[in-house]
């Protein structure tokens, strides 16, 4: 929701990044304010997921130009774990499995690490158990998730729910959801998006990275950005997503080429 007294959370200017010597991001500009929901759409290979990983600090990507200011600080001064503790959250497209590590243990460690950073109380296992069970209701998760290994043998939908559960626990300032809708059936999509909506406040912001308009029926974006060849080439309101759904992406890049040629 766009509102009057919002603050700038994330300011991306001319961001460039390479992986394996190939430039993927070629100058991205994006401003995200508190309370806003942004959708970043685009075809495969347009650089959407790379953008998400660069913001979170994946070591395989090298930033070669531009800047990102997160709440007044240079984001690239922070290590990945410091970004997470400062409130940058990435819901993974493909969450990894960690066999033998109980989900409850992992979730509590992540939670307490962030709490410590914020100067707030850490929770012991019993306190945390009560706390996390409450959050799990939001995502209609079975409590036996806590005893299973982290993502171990989880279905695609279960993994995505587990990601959003972590978002609920860590209460980030900026949450980037990388194709959280992929691999979800209709019911799971409803549950996950409902969870995200409840976590959206006037103090945080959400960036949805997606191929499809489908998810935007549930989480209504304030801005829709179209990404193509490592740049954001068009920005509009939620109606842009519907237009993309009916017309595809080609017309946007054609339009952009026309503008560039003019």
């Amino acid at each position, binding site marked *: 929701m766009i509102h009057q007294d919002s603050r700038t959370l994330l300011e991306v200017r001319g961001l460039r990044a390479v992986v394996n010597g190939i430039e993927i991001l070629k100058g991205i500009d994006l401003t995200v304010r508190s309370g806003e929901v942004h959708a970043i759409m685009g075809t495969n290979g347009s650089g959407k997921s790379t953008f998400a990983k660069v913001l979170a600090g*994946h070591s395989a990507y090298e930033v070669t130009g531009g800047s990102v200011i997160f709440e007044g600080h240079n984001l690239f001064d922070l290590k990945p*774990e410091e970004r997470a503790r400062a409130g940058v959250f990435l819901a993974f497209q493909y969450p990894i499995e960690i066999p033998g*590590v109980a989900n409850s243990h992992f979730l509590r460690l992540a939670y307490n*690490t962030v709490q410590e950073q914020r100067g707030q109380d850490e929770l012991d296992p019993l306190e945390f158990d009560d706390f996390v069970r409450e959050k799990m209701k939001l995502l209609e998760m079975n409590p036996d998730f806590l005893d299973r290994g982290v993502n171990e043998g989880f279905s695609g939908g279960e993994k995505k729910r587990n990601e959003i559960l972590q978002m609920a626990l860590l209460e980030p300032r900026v949450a980037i959801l990388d194709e959280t809708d992929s691999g979800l059936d209709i019911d799971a999509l409803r549950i996950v998006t409902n969870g995200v909506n409840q976590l959206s406040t006037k103090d945080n912001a959400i960036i949805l990275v997606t191929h499809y308009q489908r998810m935007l029926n549930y989480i209504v974006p304030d801005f829709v950005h179209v990404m193509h060849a490592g740049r954001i080439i068009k920005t509009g309101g939620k109606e842009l997503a519907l237009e993309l759904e009916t017309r595809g992406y080609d017309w946007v890049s054609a339009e952009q080429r026309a503008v560039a040629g003019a």
Partner: protein
Amino acid sequence: MSAVLQNLVNQPYKHGFVTEIESDIAPKGLNEDIIKLISTKKNEPAWMLDFRLQAYQHWLTMEEPKWPNVKYPKIDFQAISYYAAPKSKKKLNSMDEVDPELLRTFEKLGVPMHERAALAGVAVDVIFDSVSVATTYKQKLAEVGIIFCSISEAIQMHPELVRQYLGTVVPVGDNYYAALNSAVFTDGTFCFIPKGVKCPMDLSTYFRINTEESGQFERTLIVGEEGSSVSYLEGCTAPKFDTNQLHAAVVELVALDNADIKYSTVQNWYAGDENGLGGIYNFVTKRGLAKGVNSRISWTQVETGSAITWKYPSCILRGDNSVGEFYSVAVTNHYQQADTGTKMVHIGKNTRSTIVSKGISAGHSNNSYRGLVRIAPTAAGARNYSQCDSMLIGDKCGANTFPYIQVRNQEAKVEHEASTSKIGEDQLFYFAQRGIGSEEAVSMIINGFCKDVFQQLPMEFAVEATKLLGFKLEGSVG
């Protein structure tokens, strides 16, 4: 491999220091005179000397095994001193009488024994360079008829028991290193649990190698009579040296009808520096004989140290319905080499065995699992389940699995599973994205990987083992 991973594995050995206690060292070299000297020094009966000389004769005819997947320069067995004993040989009645320098060593190792003994109720038979200097809780154990003492003492005080069982599981000519050990072992532990007695506490021995270039030849014999049970813990750590130290221990376990012996090891001997220089050569023969019906032998090991590990704790399942178990975590880093595994030999009917092996390789190390499951024609209804998992950290290390399976009974059921995984950037990134740094992430991944084995360890040991793995792999991930 990123810098963080590198740093994690490259921490210096934390237990590297030498305690200055005067040692009484035999001249270098091995011959019958040296063996006689050892036997005389230890005031042994004639049958013991015969045992040693017989072993020595076998050894002379044998060759060092060449089949392990490890490389090291040829050992000059004549350049080793086979006997070293602290000069203060006075028998001690309490911890107060122990050399304060020795106590300080234990402090440095984080093994405050008196506290440990008192708080945990663990009886610790301290082995310090071959001679026992303190034994605690012996009194309490004696009340229920348990004998827990050094093997030298047992040879003096309970010769008939030692003579009855010594060398019955690992014969004097069993293999090159076992023969060597049988000829020259200087001390070790003897434990006897009489009929029907459940040992009221975990028994524990801390080994420590201290004299430079003194080979260590420990001998352990544990006998569980009918219906008895015992849990035995062995933990090791050693000071830092540049020259390689040979260690060739022999451990024999005998379980009679319905007896249960659980043997747990956490091994952290000096592994050499980050360039692979120095470090202990650990050539160990460990074998348990499940002799009686319904008996059970269980090995749990956490191997983190030594430049070279050559070790196959095994079970001979002779009694009908007997059970053998092997749970192992072997960690190698830098230039460490490990060739370790187990043998499960099924002879009795309906014998069952379980093998769970977790190998973790980092740095330039090489980690091999080698295991044999043999089902004899007599072992109708025998079952085995083996699981061998390897984890690689970085791209310069190696992991191998060599399973040997010989089945000669059609009713037997043998299962083998294996997997290989790798800690990579993506795992660490996932943790980092949740605020968790790489050291903690690696520790968590590893502990998750080893969970099935750690669960088998006694509580205190499990905590120690978890920390130890963290130390060993610090700096390896990045």
